[in-house]
């Protein structure tokens, strides 16, 4: 290897301070690839060979970020049979860091930018961490990708903070910290204000500790070290250790997240042995996760898909970025008020219009309330809060929308009403204003007929509550131009939401798909599946809530309306089983959470037990179907509907299907989303892929009906080894 091919530069200054500069020559960010592994090993060897006169070491980065972490492109390829190689590589990464950590002179990490995952793990191998203040993150987010910090992150945080703090604060949730928080939490020791101060501060610390033997030793390498809070042999910890796995399962609502389980296991097991053995145990769990399917699903969705969408993969290319200056929001109800808030927060002046000024003012006060919460929690300053609120002008007068280059309509789901409000404001807004309609089901092409320039008209399906839900589904009508789509995409990104793009069709993508799982839940209820089993199968599959709870929250009267329209659309005369359940519940006066009575009972709006009368209406069958079927009927019916959406051109991107299904309608994150669930499906016998999915769908079709039958196209894809377009 020649010097220029190294990803770790070695320099020694006149004071005898060695700087190891992380600088991958082939990439804009440093990752733990083969070149890094070899370079770091070589650099650390040189450190020992050249120890004469060396007083300490600074680890720095030449990139914008400090170090990006593991090589996910490599990891997503790893198969179970690759386990020996993966284990070996993980061990190599750690061997160099351990050797660096035990170098008998002080080692300091100079963190200049994002240090996530592997990046932070390198820094944790230093005796001291100095970070420059800035808008970047520090943390160990591996768990969010189905992985664990396998570069020593588990072993070192357990020894720095103790088992409980390490798993709760840093590992299980994969929390990312801002610089100040990282300092407060003890992940970094020192923060400097500017980049120019960083290396000098690092070198100053080295010089100040040049002859301090203790400073050159990690706490866990000093005599008499004990893990804070103790190990399982300590009766105090032993008393509540058995609750850790139970609490984790409670938190996950029974869903299978192998990474969280592995993190807990590696942390506890590692605490009972010496550092090097703990580190090896960590590597073995890491290898298991890397070679398993779950991490692939989660890396696909939460790294590759999300990154693609955020970098504009679903946006038409070659169109200049666009930013609205003045937005008109029509309708100041719950949705309109939320939309006004997110726009104002993003710096856009907002005219919030409703039929009565009083309503519009009420909509504006929603922002005031959110601001107040933000200020009291220290998230924003009261100056900023005032500024945000000041951007919103409530009105009942359409003329106040003069100069708006963006209009978002959020009135009731009624085509005539929507036509009417657009008619009112169109004469006043800019002639080329982007025209958006917030709707969850109404066909955009039809709504566009209400305006004289349908090419500028587009659907924006916001989710409730708007300030919390991260997704916006963009719906292009027949006449919508690429220019309009690009502008809408930019608006969604401006308000810090993730866009997916779908073509116009009844229910678009998300509403259509979630409808199927509600149907399936009600169908199972009617068949006699125990209602709690339906709900728990959902959460154990990874859904946030079960279909009965969703039905109560969506409101059965709304669901009935959608069912009727869908049935009309398909030309069906007879109601499906699910619709008869909806009818019966409405007849019984149990339509929704809102009305305080649904499948569940409610007291003061709070959900209680499932309605005790439900068993009389839908008796629980003596013989229950396998619980795995109760889970998979929910997953499969949504996945199969997703496949149909691809075939019909409603959705054209696997990334959109994955992110849309997870962020919009609660499809289980551990599957990687509705498209990844099919292509990454792992059967009970361990086969992985679309063919296994098709085989299982056929089984479900045999047992529960033809709605589970895969289409010919899906069979063809499975046979040819195709996947959905990225």
């Amino acid at each position, binding site marked *: 290897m020649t010097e220029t091919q190294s990803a770790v530069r070695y320099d020694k200054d006149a004071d005898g301070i060695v700087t190891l500069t992380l600088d991958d020559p082939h990439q804009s960010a440093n990752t733990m690839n083969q070149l890094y592994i070899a370079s770091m090993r070589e650099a650390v060897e040189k450190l020992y060979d050249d120890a004469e006169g060396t007083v300490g070491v600074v680890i720095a980065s030449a990139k914008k970020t400090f170090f990006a972490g593991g090589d996910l492109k490599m990891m997503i390829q790893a198969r179970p049979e690759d386990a020996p190689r993966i284990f070996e590589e993980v061990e190599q990464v750690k061997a160099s860091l351990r050797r660096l950590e035990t170098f008998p002179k002080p080692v300091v990490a100079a963190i200049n930018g994002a240090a996530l995952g592997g990046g932070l793990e390198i820094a944790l191998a230093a005796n001291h961490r100095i970070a420059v203040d800035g808008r970047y993150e520090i943390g160990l987010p591996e768990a969010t990708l189905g992985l664990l910090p396998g570069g020593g992150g588990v072993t070192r945080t357990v020894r720095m903070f103790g088992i409980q703090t390490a798993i709760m604060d840093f590992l299980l949730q994969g929390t990312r910290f801002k610089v100040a928080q990282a300092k407060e939490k003890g992940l970094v020791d020192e923060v400097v204000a500017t980049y120019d101060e960083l290396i000098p501060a690092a070198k100053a610390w080295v010089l100040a500790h040049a002859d301090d033997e203790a400073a050159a030793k990690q706490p866990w390498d000093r005599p008499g070290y004990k893990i804070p809070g103790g190990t*399982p*042999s300590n*009766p105090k910890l*032993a008393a*509540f*250790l*058995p*609750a*850790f*796995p*139970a*609490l*984790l*399962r*409670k*938190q996950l*609502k*029974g869903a299978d997240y192998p990474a969280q*389980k592995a993190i*807990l*296991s590696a942390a*506890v*097991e590692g605490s009972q042995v010496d550092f090097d053995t703990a580190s090896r145990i960590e590597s073995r769990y890491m290898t298991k996760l890397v070679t398993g399917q779950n991490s692939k699903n989660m890396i696909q969705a939460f790294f590759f898909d999300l990154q693609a969408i955020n970098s504009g993969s679903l946006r038409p290319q070659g169109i200049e970025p666009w930013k609205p200056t003045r937005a008109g929001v029509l309708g100041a109800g719950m949705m309109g008020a939320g939309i006004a808030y997110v726009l104002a927060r993003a710096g856009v002046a907002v005219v919030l219009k409703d039929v009565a000024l009083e309503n519009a003012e009420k909509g504006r006060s929603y922002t005031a309330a959110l601001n107040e919460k933000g200020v009291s929690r220290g998230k924003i300053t009261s100056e900023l809060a005032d500024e945000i609120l000041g951007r919103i002008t409530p009105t009942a007068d359409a003329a106040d929308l003069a100069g708006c280059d963006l209009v978002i309509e959020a009135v009731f789901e009624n085509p005539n009403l929507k036509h009417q409000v657009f008619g009112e404001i169109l004469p006043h807004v800019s002639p080329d204003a982007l025209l958006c309609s917030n709707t969850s089901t109404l066909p955009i092409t039809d709504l566009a007929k209400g305006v004289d320039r349908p090419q500028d008209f587009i659907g924006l399906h916001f989710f409730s509550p708007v300030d919390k839900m991260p997704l916006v589904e963009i719906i292009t009508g027949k006449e919508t131009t690429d220019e309009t789509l690009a502008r809408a995409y930019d608006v969604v990104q401006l308000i810090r939401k993730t866009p997916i793009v779908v073509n116009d069709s009844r229910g678009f993508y998300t509403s259509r798909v979630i409808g199927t799982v509600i149907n399936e839940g009600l169908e199972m209820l009617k068949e006699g599946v*125990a209602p*709690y*089993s339906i709900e*728990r*199968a959902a959460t*154990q599959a990874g859904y946030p809530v079960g279909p009965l709870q969703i039905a109560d929250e969506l409101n059965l009267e709304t669901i009935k309306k959608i069912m009727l329209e869908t049935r009309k659309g398909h030309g069906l005369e007879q109601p499906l089983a699910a619709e008869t359940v909806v009818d019966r519940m409405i007849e019984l006066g149990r339509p929704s959470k809102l009305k305080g009575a649904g499948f569940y009972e409610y007291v003061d709006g709070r959900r209680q*037990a*499932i309605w005790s009368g439900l068993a009389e209406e839908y008796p*629980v069958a003596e013989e*229950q179907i396998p*619980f795995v079927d109760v889970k998979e009927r929910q997953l499969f019916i949504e996945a199969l509907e997703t496949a149909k959406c691809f075939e019909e051109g409603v959705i054209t991107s696997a990334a959109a299907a994955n992110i849309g299904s997870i962020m919009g309608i609660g499809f289980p994150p551990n599957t990687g989303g509705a498209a990844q669930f099919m292509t990454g499906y792992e059967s009970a016998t361990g086969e992985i892929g679309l063919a296994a999915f098709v085989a299982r769908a056929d089984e479900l079709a045999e047992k529960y009906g033809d709605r589970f039958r895969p289409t010919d196209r899906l069979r063809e894809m499975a046979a040819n080894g195709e996947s959905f377009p990225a």
Partner: protein
Amino acid sequence: MAEAFVYDHIRTPRGKGKASGSLHEVKPVDLVVGLLDEIKVRNPGLDPERIDDLVLGVVSPIGDQGGDIAKTAALKAGYPHTVAGVQLNRFCASGLEAVNQGASRVRGGFEDLILAGGVESMSRVPIGSDGGAWAMDPATALLTDFVPQGIGADLIATLEGFSREDVDAYAAESQARAAKAQANGYFDNAVVPVKDLNGVVVLERDEFIRPGTTVESLAGLKPSFADLGQGAGFDDVALEKYHWLEKINHVHHAGNSSGIVDGAAIVVLGNEQVGQDLGLTPRAKVLATAVSGAEPTIMLTGPAPAARKALARAGLEVGDIDLFEINEAFAAVAMRFMRDMGISHDITNVNGGAIAMGHPLGATGAMILGTLIDELERRGLRRGLATLCVGGGMGIATIVELV
């Protein structure tokens, strides 16, 4: 094949298993030594040279109870060096497991005379203090759905529809029966007072029984496992499997669960020849033994499958058994066992059980077998079955017949 006869059985009284309990000051090794001394006194013909082994169940075999306490006790009691000793652990079944293993070894013909029983000083070595992978290792617990037994007991009550009043009524009856049996001296032949090094009596009779307990007096007790279930997440773990239930009804508390106590027991087992040689009179013979298992999260439903297995092995029907002893780990366990087997409370735990008298984990199995034999004799009946629920979902059963 040789028969395995029970020639004698004795036990210590059960002391309250806390610092204020009478037996807290007595080391577990001395609880056993006291019984080993008494065996020689009660059976003058029993030549210790003929004893092959001392088998003792201990559930938390660490500290005072660690290091093969059986051999240690045999040495301290001055038994010949040829008397071996072994400690075993099948959780709550350990005492009966010791008897069953001893009986099997005698019946198999490799050995002639075995002392079997168990000891547990719960006031000194608390339950759970020995750790173990099931509860303490997350990877194991996650894979095997570990929950503490009390959650399983409450789950049984939930599934069977046993209300708080039902389980409390059972508990009150256990107290009444135990108090009456103690007052009538039914336990006197088996219970050997614990004495100090000067021969002064430390504890003469079971001290855990609370005569006069009623459903009303139990009503005020707080459920013991509600916090563990709801706060520590164990209900959620159990309900992942028992997904059709709304929730777990936490009905068990200190008053309807087995008491935490200190105590020890020993059963003398031998073949026919050794009895003749030493002039010992057989009191019962062991007809069949069995262990089995059931779903481990509910954990405590193992007694019925074990009992059925033992019955089948003995070629008997439920109706052939005159009296049953089921360890009252929790009220719901005994109630569920009676329901599973289709037997009446009239022939089950007729002198009360562990709710009233306590459950010194490693010793209980041997104690209830002794109680069963005594009561069969007193009533002039023939066959009895003793059973316990066991951690990990296991169950154990032993069928004896008077001779």
